[in-house]
């Protein structure tokens, strides 16, 4: 079914003197994996809490599946939340935790048990039902929280930095699993994170939030390749700005440009010809950083300014890399990779 799962209009929320959400308009489609990405204090969690109903907006309107829910309590909304700290009930078993939402809705006991077990199986926790949350690891608790929120098959699932407390390896595994589960159950996921890589790898679409406002909404590729503001350019990926005089001299027209480091080729050999539709700038290598799979070059441009370039280590080794320091290089990129930003 193609439709709107969530629609936010002119949403504002302040806490005392701090404005957490300063006018947010947003539409999230049915069945979408939608991420809200932003640094802490950008208002992403507040937007999530407004949608869940834990906070009441000062102004604006919240629609779930076309129905105005702005004034409704959390228990009147067809959304479930996976909390950052999981918020599992410590006095209940894993199974009771998962079945709680069904029990509250008066689902018969036998059906409750079957569905709770099925939900636990979905997240890979068969047989963990009789345990207490305190007996589980962080990753397992995370899965229980997910099963508890999914078992009632809400229209929308809200996830508040659910992977934040996990270590890197587990986090990467859960990213893949979460995405797989979402595809399987077909529920709209609204995923709040400050981790740009997480947002880029998992989402169908991303909203980047900056100081209570939406800076850009788009697919991961759109957000990454064509950032709409300097903030988005710097928050998502490494920002690499070419501005002022240098920008004018190199590109031929004034403005501020963002070029992703991996789009820039580092050419050592002066004999290599300039390719068509490419821009070339010359400079001196100020610093070289060996990253294992890649090497990062910081190049001071002759025309002023500094650019970072990232090269895959196809044949180079760390020893070769060090030799680059202080040498003259040419940087080259395709026209379309220099993205002009509004000033």
């Amino acid at each position, binding site marked *: 079914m193609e439709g709107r799962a969530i629609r936010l209009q002119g949403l504002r929320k302040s806490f005392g003197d701090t404005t957490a959400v300063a006018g947010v308009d947003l539409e999230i489609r049915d069945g979408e994996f939608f991420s809200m990405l932003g640094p802490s204090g950008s208002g992403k969690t507040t937007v999530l809490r407004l949608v*869940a*109903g*834990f906070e009441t907006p000062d102004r604006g309107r919240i629609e779930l599946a076309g129905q105005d829910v702005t004034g409704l*309590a*959390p*228990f009147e909304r067809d*959304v*479930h*939340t996976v*909390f950052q*700290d999981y*918020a*599992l*009930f*410590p*006095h209940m078993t894993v199974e009771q935790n998962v079945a*709680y*939402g069904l029990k*509250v*809705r008066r689902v018969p006991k036998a059906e409750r048990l079957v569905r709770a077990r099925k939900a636990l199986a979905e997240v890979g926790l068969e047989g963990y039902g009789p345990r207490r949350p305190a007996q589980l690891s962080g990753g397992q608790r995370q899965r229980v929280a997910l099963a*508890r*929120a999914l078992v*009632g098959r809400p229209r929308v699932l809200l996830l508040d930095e659910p992977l934040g407390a996990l270590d890197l390896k587990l986090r990467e595994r859960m990213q893949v699993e979460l995405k797989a589960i979402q595809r399987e159950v077909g529920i709209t996921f609204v995923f709040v994170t400050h981790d740009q890589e997480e947002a880029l790898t998992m989402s169908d679409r991303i909203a980047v939030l900056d100081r209570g406002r939406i800076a850009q909404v788009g697919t991961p590729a759109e957000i990454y390749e064509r950032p709409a503001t300097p903030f988005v350019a710097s928050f998502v990926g490494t920002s690499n700005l070419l501005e002022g005089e240098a920008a004018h001299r190199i590109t031929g027209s004034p403005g501020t440009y963002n070029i992703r480091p991996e789009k820039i080729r580092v050419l050592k050999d002066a004999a290599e010809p300039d390719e068509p539709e490419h821009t070339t700038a010359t400079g001196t290598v100020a610093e070289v950083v060996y990253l294992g799979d890649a090497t990062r070059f910081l190049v001071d441009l002759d025309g002023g300014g500094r650019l970072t370039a990232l090269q895959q280590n196809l044949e180079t080794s760390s020893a070769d890399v060090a030799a680059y320091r202080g040498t003259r290089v040419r940087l080259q990129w395709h026209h379309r990779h220099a993205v002009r930003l509004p000033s």
Partner: protein
Amino acid sequence: MTTDVPPAAGRGTVRRLAGTLHRRPRLRLALLLTGPLLWLSVLYLGSLAVLFVSAFWTTDSFTSQVVKVWSTDNFHALFTTPVYRQVVLRSVGVALAVTVLCAVIAFPLAFYTARVARPQRRPLLVVAILTPLWASYLVKVYAWRLILSEGGLADWMLAPFGLSGPGYGLPATVLTLTYLWLPYMVLPLHTALEQLPAGLLEASADLGARPGRTFRSVVLPMVLPSVAAGSVFTFSLSLGDYITVQIVGGKTQLIGNLVYSNIELNLPMAAALGTVPVAVIVLYLLAIRRTGALNSL
């Protein structure tokens, strides 16, 4: 700072002593616990033992002298005399009523101080709840005697509704004891409610639970151990009390009064009566141990 000054002799001794203690954990433990253990075993357990033993003695009915001959007559009397049975049941009933009343009054109060009031104000509110404990017990009970007296504050306040105060008697006793022991219930409840993660209440609402359901399924089970912990105080303090009932209880008799009135005439009987609250409280503790309350004391 100069480095060539030798350490003072006194400090050296202290250092050596500290070193010795560090190397001998058993000595450390002995120093720590000898005093308290002596107090506990000799004074506390010793007097309990004396109480229990003397409950099996009898009294010469002419001279009121204690006769140190073993007999179970006192306990026999305790179980067969209707008055004694009534008084024991009444005392337990009063203790239970006070406990329930304290819990019912303390919960909304603690909920306010722990979750609703502004965080900066909370310590002040807790202190306010505890201030009655700084006043003398007798002053408070006599204040209640005045409030409940005929034409007193209670009568005056209820008069517009065509009612009168409870006067002196059993209800007055329960009321006064509830007032006296309420802080002991509020405090553990306040702590429990304050530590209750807000996320759990939100999670419950998020999963579709109305406030009543959240209260029954999440809040209550999580603070129940603390209610039980508070009830240990309200229950045992009420069960052992005999002064309040003398001042506001009218003719009401509780175990404490019987013990008190028997001490001069029949010490062994008083001792037998005195074992009843001890036994009841042991049973009570065993019962609530199952709630896990003793871990949160």
